[in-house]
């Protein structure tokens, strides 16, 4: 019915021809779009599609790729190391939350009350973030020397604590990794909190004081509720970051001792690039897609929260 009445209105529009397209700036539009289309096309969109295709294919360079269905995913789920890696990554994430979540908040709240040389405090806190991560890990590798003459063990001996094995024992390896990662990242989180703290409306504190609130009550009833959103975002970002931890386990321990620090990303790396006889690319992409699905849920929550914020 609608189709019989539509034609007259359609004909009123000018016909689109290559000529009108050109005069309307179509060519220059395309020229400006070109670097983006070229770079994203080859280095983002193509590999994303390929990742999905490869996860259901068997790919090596000896034979043409063949369709294998869910076999790659099956292989991941039948690999005992997969569960070790998931458990370790979860352990890393939990430890990183225990160490790394409250410390920056407390530090930022205390730093926000500093009257003089505030810049000095934040610059000092941010310095570890500036050190290139590889340098930081290699430096801590020296600190973690397990002999009694190691840097950290020397400091422990000053207070009468016996030397620790640090990254050389399965029990202490993961906490050692998390300690370094927390040191390396805390400064960034502190700066985010400091920015949030300066924007808490002072009227709220004034009002709380009129109601007779002391310092602790002001922190509990004004500061923390005002930071609620930022705290949630840093929480989600930290979980997204720690589920992809690679540098620390790879450079400190290569996943050892006894697989105590093998993480999901390290396992993906091993599947793809770990064997000198050729990569198991299908399995590697299958596992990376499983990780991506987990992270997509988290980032979806993150985007919903930040969107709710900017709308309000």
């Amino acid at each position, binding site marked *: 019915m609608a189709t019989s009445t539509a034609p007259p209105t359609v004909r009123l529009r000018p016909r689109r021809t290559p000529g009108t397209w050109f005069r309307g700036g179509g060519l220059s539009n395309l020229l400006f*779009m070109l670097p983006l289309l070229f770079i994203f096309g080859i280095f983002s969109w193509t*590999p*994303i599609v390929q*990742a999905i295709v490869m996860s259901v294919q068997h790919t090596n360079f000896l034979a043409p790729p063949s369709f294998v269905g869910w076999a790659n995913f099956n292989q991941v789920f039948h690999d005992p190391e997969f569960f070790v890696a998931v458990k370790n990554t979860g352990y890393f994430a939990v430890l990183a939350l225990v160490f790394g979540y409250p410390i920056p908040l407390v530090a930022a*709240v205390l730093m926000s009350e*500093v009257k003089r040389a505030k810049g000095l405090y934040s610059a000092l806190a*941010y310095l570890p973030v500036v050190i290139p991560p590889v340098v930081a890990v290699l430096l801590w590798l020296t600190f973690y020397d397990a002999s009694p003459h190691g840097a950290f063990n020397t400091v422990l001996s000053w207070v009468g604590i016996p030397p620790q094995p640090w990254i050389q024992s399965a029990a202490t390896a993961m906490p050692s990794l998390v300690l370094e990662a927390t040191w390396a990242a805390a400064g960034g989180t502190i700066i985010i909190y400091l920015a*949030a703290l300066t924007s808490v409306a002072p009227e709220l504190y004034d009002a709380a004081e009129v109601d007779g609130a002391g310092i602790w009550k002001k922190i509990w009833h004004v500061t923390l509720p005002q930071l609620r959103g930022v705290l949630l975002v840093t929480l989600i970002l930290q979980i*997204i970051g720690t589920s992809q931890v690679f540098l620390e386990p790879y450079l400190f321990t290569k996943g050892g001792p006894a697989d105590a620090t093998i993480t999901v990303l390290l396992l993906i790396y091993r599947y793809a690039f770990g064997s000198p006889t050729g990569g198991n690319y299908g399995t590697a992409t299958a596992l990376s897609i499983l*990780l991506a699905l987990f992270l997509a849920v988290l980032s979806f929550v993150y985007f919903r929260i930040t969107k709710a914020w900017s709308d309000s």
Partner: protein
Amino acid sequence: MTSVTQPAATPEVISATGGAAAPEVRSRRFLSRAPKEAEAQDRGIISSMDWRRPGVRAAMRPIHVILLIILIIVGIGPLLWLAKSAITPTQDTLREPMALFPNGVDWTALSRAWSDPQVGIGTQFLNTLWVAVGSWGVQLLVATTGGYALAVLRPKYAKIVNGLVLGTLFVPAVVLLVPLYLIVLHPPVIGAPIINTFWAVWLPAGANAFNILLMTRFFNNLPREVFEAAKTDGAGPFRLFWSIVLPMSRPILGVVSVFAIINAWKDYLWPSLVLANPAVQPLSVRLPLIQPQIELDVFLAALAISTLIPIVLFLIFQGAFLRSAGLGGAVKG
């Protein structure tokens, strides 16, 4: 780079990021009370009345001193240790790593770390600069032209392209690892393999959806009347881009530049895969490889040299770094 050091740049930069980052919400509130700022400047959790109470003062002073000492130990301690150990003979560092004054000073470690034919990092240092400069150039080219096309020119297909670009924000980099590696081995369109050339890092760095997001948000907030006026005066799309839009976008160009250079300097996994040849390796890839075959003092000297430029850049552009860190929340994902 210099443009970001202007304090006036901040609010524009932050508001340009829109809802993607937490700071935006805060900054809007910050802006709205800007006129009252003078009177409210020193207002924190603890009021001036609280400060007058002796208990509060007695508690806060030592807390702040202790905090400062902790920050010095944690923030600058490892760097000072690294600087000391870079010029200390290996045996001293091994025997007494925490000794304040080394028995002897050995400057040769620094020069060996730089120019030793086997383990020297002089070449890799320059490579790192190249990687950073090239990634910066590609990212800026893609982000400015793409952002301009998407936000200002707005052809019909802009919405689709924008959606496809923003969609990649949800795909973690690890998914791309294997297919991107295979693409670098056999790139479509380009033809010849680009592995072991800087292009293998430069080109994928350009596919950064967060840059496009920052740019389009910023361009969207520019006053469109200025564009219309320029068009009436006869400016074509190229003139509009080069003489109007880019000069107005210096703050956001600064932010994208800081991110691009920091990320290029920090990246490890991807360069370690595609820049395996020592002649093109950046420092981050080289350092773990030379560690087993080198004396400790020379190795620590190499670490010290690698840290120097980021630290110096941070000390010069402190404000820009800390402001980007406020935005940083949104890039980590």
